[in-house]
């Protein structure tokens, strides 16, 4: 009956249309969820690939010998940036370059001209050349004692490029901690007090101005803050305190406090604003004044959130690279004096990675430091997320 009423082709198209829509729905959902999965995958990939590059450190003894040898072979074609072969024409360039124009004329000249340009930093490349040779020697010397790298981890000497390289992470750790403590001592109280003012004392209009202005500080790139610290703060504080090294842990700490303030401020302000209004009303009704309510009722109630804010602030300071590179002086000195130069983990990676060669011990150690930083920031975030949020929820939803 139906097939007589409607032409056959039409029912066919209708059915197929229906089916097609279901397929597209299904596809859309699957594609969207798999893209969402990507952000989980990225976290895993980051960990795997940062950790993978530091793996040569963990294989010990004879295995490592074979591994490093095998790697040295396989890596030659794919080594990053400047391989030994590639550099040769540049290093011994003087002769070949002088010869080439005469033999091949303008074409090869332009080729040679292009190469150094595309690599950019000629001085840097020159630096890598001796280090390749040196570290090749160092690796061969070090082979019988691959675990030597490990044993140097717990010393304070950071001498990555030498005949006898030492990778003392302790000095870097102390430097990083020193800067973090100074930065948090400045940023923590300032940001939390400012958040308290914004959420408890400021009028609505003032609040609408203060909040975006302070959050504007987050839009300052860290390289700008580092530059400001290097050019302005360092000289200013040297004039005030009169210490010897212009760039030191204190300057780095002050600059990093500037980077951490907006994070701590925003999250603590959110935490303070999330305290139920009934708390405030109950406190005021009992006769407490406004400031008593703010300091003895709202602030304690928001403690878990503020704790989370401080943790994330620590994470930011701990991993901050550009400010550390520019303002801390980058010398791995171990002392309790805040006005001594320090070298942080992140700054070490930032300043030395470009000068290492793929696969060598120094390279692996830098990636190992990277994995440490990653694990640390991951753990901080996990604590802030689960422990603190769980506590907050318990508190406000009546246990």
């Amino acid at each position, binding site marked *: 009956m139906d097939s007589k009423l409607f032409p056959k082709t039409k029912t066919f198209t209708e059915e197929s249309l229906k089916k097609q829509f279901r397929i597209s729905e299904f596809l859309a959902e699957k594609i969207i969820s798999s893209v*969402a999965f990507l952000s989980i995958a*990225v976290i895993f990939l980051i960990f795997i690939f940062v950790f993978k590059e530091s793996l040569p450190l963990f294989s010990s003894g004879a295995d490592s010998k074979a591994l490093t040898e095998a790697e040295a072979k396989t890596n030659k074609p*794919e080594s990053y940036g400047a391989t030994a072969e590639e550099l040769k024409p540049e290093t011994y360039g003087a002769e070949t370059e002088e010869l080439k124009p005469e033999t091949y004329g303008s074409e090869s000249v332009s080729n040679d001209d292009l190469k150094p340009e595309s690599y950019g930093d000629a001085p840097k490349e020159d630096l890598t050349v001796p280090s390749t040779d040196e570290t090749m020697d160092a690796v061969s010397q070090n082979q019988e004692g691959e675990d030597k790298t490990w044993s140097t981890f717990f010393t304070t000497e950071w001498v990555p490029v030498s005949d006898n390289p030492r990778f003392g992470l302790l000095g870097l750790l102390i430097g990083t901690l020193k800067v973090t403590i100074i930065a948090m001592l400045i940023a923590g109280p300032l940001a939390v007090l400012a958040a308290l003012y914004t959420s408890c004392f400021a009028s609505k209009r003032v609040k609408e101005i203060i909040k975006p202005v302070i959050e504007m500080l987050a839009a300052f790139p860290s390289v700008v803050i580092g*530059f400001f610290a290097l*050019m302005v703060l360092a000289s200013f504080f040297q004039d005030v305190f009169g210490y010897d090294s212009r760039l030191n842990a204190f300057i780095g700490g002050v600059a990093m406090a500037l980077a951490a303030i907006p994070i701590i401020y925003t999250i603590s302000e959110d935490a303070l604003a999330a305290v139920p209004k009934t708390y405030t009303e109950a406190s005021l009704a009992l006769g407490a004044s*406004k400031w*008593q309510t703010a300091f003895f009722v709202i602030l304690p109630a928001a403690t878990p959130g503020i704790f989370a804010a401080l943790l994330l602030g620590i994470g930011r300071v701990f991993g901050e690279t550009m400010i550390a590179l520019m303002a801390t002086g980058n010398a791995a000195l171990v002392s309790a004096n805040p006005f001594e130069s320090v070298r942080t983990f992140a700054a070490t990676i*930032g300043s030395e990675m470009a000068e290492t060669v793929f696969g060598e011990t120094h390279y692996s150690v830098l990636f190992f430091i990277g994995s440490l930083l990653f694990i640390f920031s991951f753990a901080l975030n*996990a604590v802030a997320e689960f422990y603190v949020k769980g506590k907050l929820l318990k508190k406000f939803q009546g246990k």
Partner: protein
Amino acid sequence: MDTVINQTENHFFSSKKRGSEAKGKFFIGLTQLAVILIIAILFIILGIIVYQGRSKFSWEFISSFPTNGMTEGGIFPAIIGTFILVIVMSIAAVPFGTITALYLTEYAGENSKFAAAVRFSVRTLAVVPSIIFGLFGLGFFIQFIGAGADTVLNDGQLRWGQPNILWASLTMSLLTLPVIIVSVEEALKTIPRELREASLALGATKWQTIRKVILPESVSGIMTGTILAVSRGAGEVAPILFTGAAYYLATLPGSLSDQFMNLGYHIYIMSTQSSDVEKTMPIQFATTLVLLILTLSLNVVAVIIRARIRRKAK
């Protein structure tokens, strides 16, 4: 006994109240001082950079190449490099960020463990130090994908297995992904339920509703996210330190496999490794000023759009 306690309590209470007035003033003053201090620091930084950078800041400075070993001339290639970086970065990050946000608001169930894991990953991505992204870019994009592509496509000739603008942009896009996801998600949440329900009631499927109703409504949210991501990407230096930024290039990057100059990296290099830091000081301040104008103005625009979305939602 009871009366004695009451008396002391009363006495204690009144004296506490008198003292608390002063104390209250002190504590409120303290919080005010914190706010004033932070805002003052912000304007001092801005003021000094504007003051020191203004002498060199001109159209010529923006539109010309560095000359004389980077001690004179402008920052044109650094600006262009930064632009290419943020454009390629946005092309990679915006679709992924938007789709992830769509999943979180439209598809994920309320108690979905998968969605919780995605949210956690996004928040983790937001707090991972930027230098780690640089390491990841080097280990994954350059050593793994780039070098792999070279062995397959170029017979082992080095082309993609080295730092370039593509890998730098992709590294940066991972860093800015959470910025986009958070902004788009926030915008999607402000779209009223009725709109979705009306569309579904008219017989549209879920995907049709998203494509024809939700996405057009969330354009401003996607824009905010993109602008904030661009502002962030333009200012970050650590991720590109060893994934593609170059010290000095005489030509603009011609393809994605070229290295590039970058404003932030330029500031870092000029202020720490320049041959004559004193002499190039005005150039450094002017470059910083350009970068600050770029990031701050983008942020202001984003704040304005966001405020408009919120007002609309009310």
